[in-house]
């Protein structure tokens, strides 16, 4: 927290796209190299600016998906069908292209290893992205408090980072991932196909006596419902950090 609060002026920097990969049918991860990147904390975001040949430009905010790094920034971007920028980033951009970014931004919805508390992560849809940065940061950290991830997603094919999450899932080593499907589940799925509800959180959540820190990220309705349920179950509001996705992620 202390480090993220010490920000100088945030300048626009030229980022080069080094690699792209699909994240299921609705999203794509862009790997960027930013030469003067100051580093970031898991959960922060960047502002990204794209400019047309006639000078028209547009800015959006995107959560950073990768663990802290000196020069590499990964953005996992969901293609919004009525969007102006996300279809360009998810469909048109290729390796070698240049974009402008500034950041990192945000000092609240972040996780760093100097926070010793156990962590509950609750993500809805593309709200998984900043939580994935935290999961990845934990896996590289020297101190690894217990993490639990509850990932609510409409259908199995929309899961981002599927193979990596499966590889990291290791309850004995303190990282547990649970999926909640809200429209359709894989064959043989025994859990209800439904939105996150009180019964699930009661069963899944960490005991309040452990004073876990909760990070909740997703669409507004998801975050409102989920954060309220956590409060109902006795988790103090000040231990629940939220990031609500309107049309974009991040920030106040």
């Amino acid at each position: 927290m202390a480090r993220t609060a010490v920000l100088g002026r945030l300048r626009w920097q030229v980022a080069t796209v080094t690699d792209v990969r699909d994240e299921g049918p609705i999203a794509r991860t862009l790997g960027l190299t930013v030469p003067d990147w100051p580093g970031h904390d898991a959960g922060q975001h960047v502002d990204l600016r794209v400019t047309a040949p006639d000078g028209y430009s547009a800015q959006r905010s995107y959560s950073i998906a990768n663990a802290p790094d000196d020069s590499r920034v990964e953005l996992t971007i969901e293609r919004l069908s009525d969007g102006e920028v996300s279809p360009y980033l998810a469909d048109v951009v290729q390796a070698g292209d240049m974009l402008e970014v500034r950041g990192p931004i945000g000092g609240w919805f972040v996780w760093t290893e100097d926070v010793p508390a156990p962590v509950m992560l609750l993500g809805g849809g593309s709200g998984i992205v900043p939580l994935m940065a935290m999961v990845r940061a934990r896996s590289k950290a020297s101190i690894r408090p217990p993490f639990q991830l509850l990932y609510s997603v409409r259908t199995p094919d929309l899961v981002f980072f599927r193979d990596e999450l499966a590889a990291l899932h290791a309850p004995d080593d303190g990282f547990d991932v649970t999926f909640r499907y809200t429209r359709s589940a894989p064959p043989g799925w025994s859990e209800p196909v439904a939105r996150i509800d009180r019964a699930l959180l009661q069963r899944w959540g960490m005991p309040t006596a452990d004073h876990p820190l909760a990070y909740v990220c997703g669409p507004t309705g998801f975050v409102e419902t989920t954060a309220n349920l956590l409060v109902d179950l006795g988790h103090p509001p000040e231990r629940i950090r939220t990031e609500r996705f309107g049309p974009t992620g991040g920030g106040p």
Partner: protein
Amino acid sequence: MNIISRGFSGRRRTVDPQLPPGQYLVEDFPVLSAGPTPRVDLEAWELRVVDESGRAQTWDWKAFRALPNEDVTTDLHCVTKWSKLGTHWNGVSVDTLLADFDTAADFVVASSYGGYTTNLPLEDLLDGQAWVAYAYDGEPLAPEHGGPARLLVPHLYLWKSAKWLRELQLRSDDEPGFWETLGYHNYGDPWREQRYWGD
């Protein structure tokens, strides 16, 4: 100055004069908050103004709603880049709330149920520039948008318009609030694109 993005053409070909730099238009009303939506019971709700000498005035809900109120139509600009134009509110002008205060304060810290704070120059809250709003589009203000009542300072980025308002503290010195200590601009003028420290 900008780098051209190969293959990007954009959708809007003319610059909308109602949109500050770097903003884009939305039709919905996004919600952005740092934590759970506080539950504020109207029976227990109160709004307090306290000046730099410690003199305070408090309104309960009934007294607050008995104050003269105004219809406000205004544009909203969020630092996360969305803007919403022509929104309709009902609220009590901050001028009305401060009418009985004779203050030399230059700054205000607005505090919310739930612990949020934000700081503003007092002059930005005066002369018909700011309200404590309790209705949006003719309906009671929804909790996720700051109900029962929120500060509305539409000429600054929306994080300055503290939701779930509980207190306005008039101060001689400037005390940066929640986002202002986390890298966001101390003043937050959208027309000068003052998003972050140093902008």
